[in-house]
C-alpha cells in the first residue's frame, strides 16, 4: 500500500508535467494543425529562465516565477511572429519541419548560455515529506498536482468564456469560416503559441523542482507524443488525462515490474489504444447528423 501510494503520487506528478507540455502542443495543433516538435524545448527554456531569474539574478521566487511566465509569453509570441508567420499559407508540413529546426535552436541556445552540465534548481516548492495515512510522500510532488490542475481549469475557462478563447475553437473548427467572421488568423496563432509557451514554462519549473535541471529534460518532449495520441491530438481534456495515464503507467511498471520497462509500456498502451480508437480516447469525433 505504501509503495502503491508513493508510485501513484510520483506517477501523477510526472504525468501532470507531461500534461502541461501536451496541453500547449494540443492548443497549437488545434489552432493551426502544426505539430510542434519544439514543445520539450519550450519547457526546457522555461525551466532555465526561472533558474536564471531566481538562482542567478537572485529574485525572490514569486517574482522569478512571474518573470519567467512573462518571458515565456514573449518567447511564444516571438516564435510565432518570426518563425511561423512567414510560413502562413505554405503547406503545414513546412511549418512542422520548421519546429524541428526551432527545437535545435532552442536547445543550442540553452547550452550556449547555461552550459551542458546539470544545475542546482532553486527549489521553491517545499521539499521534505508529508505523512498521509502513515505513508511519507514528497511535498513538492504533492503540490505539482493541484498546481497543474489550476492551470488546466484556467485554460478551460479561457476557451469556454473569453472572446479569443471561443474564437480559437472556431478557428479549430473551420478556419475559412472563422476568417469570414473577421477573426485574424495570425492573432489566433500568436495566442496559441503564447499559451503553449506558458504552460510549458510552468511544466519546466515543476520539473526543475521534482527532478532537477539539465539540458536533458527537453527529452520530455518525446513523452508528449504518446500522451497526446492517447488523449486525442485535438483534446485538451484528453491531454490532461493522457498525461496522468502515461505518468501512472510509467510509475507502476517501473515500481512493480522493473526499471527500464517503464519507458516502453506507454508506447505499448499507445498502440493498443490506437487499434481501438484511432483518434485517441478523447479526440473530437466527426459530428454526423442523421
Amino acid at each position, binding site marked *: 500500500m505504501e509503495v502503491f501510494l508513493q508510485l501513484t503520487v510520483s506517477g501523477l506528478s510526472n504525468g501532470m508535467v507531461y500534461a502541461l507540455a501536451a496541453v500547449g502542443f494540443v492548443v497549437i495543433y488545434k489552432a493551426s494543425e502544426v505539430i510542434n516538435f519544439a514543445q520539450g524545448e519550450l519547457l526546457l527554456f522555461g525551466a532555465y529562465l526561472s533558474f536564471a531569474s531566481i538562482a542567478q539574478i537572485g529574485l525572490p521566487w514569486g517574482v522569478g516565477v512571474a518573470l519567467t511566465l512573462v518571458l515565456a509569453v514573449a518567447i511564444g509570441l516571438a516564435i510565432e511572429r518570426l518563425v511561423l508567420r512567414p510560413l502562413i499559407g505554405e503547406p503545414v508540413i513546412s511549418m512542422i519541419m520548421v519546429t524541428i529546426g526551432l527545437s535545435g535552436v532552442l536547445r543550442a541556445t540553452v547550452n550556449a548560455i547555461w552550459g551542458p552540465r546539470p544545475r542546482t534548481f532553486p527549489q521553491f516548492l517545499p521539499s521534505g515529506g508529508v505523512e498521509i495515512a502513515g505513508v511519507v510522500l514528497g511535498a513538492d510532488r504533492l503540490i505539482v498536482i493541484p498546481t497543474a490542475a489550476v492551470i488546466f481549469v484556467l485554460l478551460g475557462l479561457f476557451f469556454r468564456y473569453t472572446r479569443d478563447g471561443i474564437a480559437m475553437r472556431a478557428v479549430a473548427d473551420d478556419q*475559412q469560416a472563422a476568417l469570414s467572421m473577421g477573426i485574424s488568423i495570425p492573432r489566433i496563432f500568436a495566442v496559441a503559441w503564447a499559451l503553449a509557451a506558458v504552460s510549458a514554462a510552468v511544466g519546466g519549473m515543476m520539473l526543475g523542482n521534482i527532478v532537477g535541471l539539465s539540458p536533458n529534460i527537453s527529452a520530455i518532449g518525446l513523452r508528449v507524443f504518446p500522451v497526446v495520441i492517447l488523449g486525442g491530438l485535438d483534446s485538451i481534456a484528453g491531454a490532461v488525462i493522457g498525461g496522468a495515464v502515461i505518468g501512472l503507467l510509467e510509475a507502476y511498471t517501473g515500481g512493480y515490474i522493473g526499471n527500464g520497462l517503464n519507458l516502453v509500456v506507454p508506447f505499448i498502451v499507445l498502440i493498443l489504444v490506437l487499434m481501438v480508437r484511432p483518434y485517441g480516447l478523447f479526440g473530437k469525433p466527426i459530428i454526423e447528423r442523421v
Partner: protein
Amino acid sequence: MAPGVGFPGGRRRPLRTRVLELSNVEVLYDDVILVLKGLSLTVAEGSITALLGPNGAGKTTTLKAISGLLRPDDGEVADGTISFRGHDIHKLDATAIVRQGIFQVMEGRRVFEHLTVEENLLVGAYARTDRAAIPDDTQKVYDYFPGLETRAKQQAGYLSGGEQQMLAIGRALMARPSLMLLDEPSLGLAPRLVRTIFDVLVRINSEEGTTMLVVEQNARLALSIAHHGYVMERGRIVLDATSKELAANEDVKEFYLGLTEVGHRRSYRDVKHYRRRKRWLS
C-alpha cells in the same frame, strides 16, 4: 423583349446610392485561371440584389472577391476595382473588410460544429467594438429564428440543415453588417424551410435596413425577393435588370426558371439563337 433588358449599363438605374460597385473586376486563381473576366455590377443601398447564373459562372468567386476570402483559395483580384461606400476595398484583407460592415454567409452554412449555437452567435460578433449590445442582438436573432433559442446550448453540428442555415444567417446578423453577401442560402433545404428563411431575409432587409447581395441557383426564388438582378455566365454579367423584368425575360424564363410556353414547340434553332445572342453580349 422588355425595354432596357439585356444590355449591361445600357439602362438607367434608379437614383439610389450605390453601396457597392465592382468595375471591370478580373479574378485569377493560382496566377493562371481567369474566372472573372471584367465583371461590373452595382448594389443599391437598402436593396436585395440577386446574382444568378449556372454552375461555374463565377458567382461564389464574385462574393469572395468582395469579402476578401479569395486568398485562402489562392485567388486574387488581378484587375479592376471594388469600392464600398466610396472606398476601394479590393486590397484589404478579410478581417478589415468585415470591419467595414460587409459580411459573407458562406455556401454550405459553415457553422462551427463543435461550438454551441450561442457561441456561434458570439463568434459572429467577434469584429464588433460595441460589445455591450451583444446580448440584445442575440435576442434579436432568436426573435427572427425562434427555433434557435431552444437549441442555444447545443452543439451546432447536431442542428438540422435548416437550423444551421438559420444559425449562419443569425451569426451574420450579430456582426450588424450594412451589406450581407449570401451564397446559396437555399442549398440542400426543404422547400418549406427555404420559404421561411427567405421570408426572414426580406424582414431583415426591411427592418434592419441591411443591403443584400444574394447568389442563388434557384432563380425563381431569388427573383421573388430581389429588387434587382444580374445574370452572369462564364465570368461576365450577361443580363442586368429589375427582378420583375428579369422574371419576364424569355431567355431567363427558359434557361433559369424552366418555363416554356405550353403548346409552343421549341426548336433547336431557338437554343442556337440564345447561344448566338450570348456570344454577342459577351
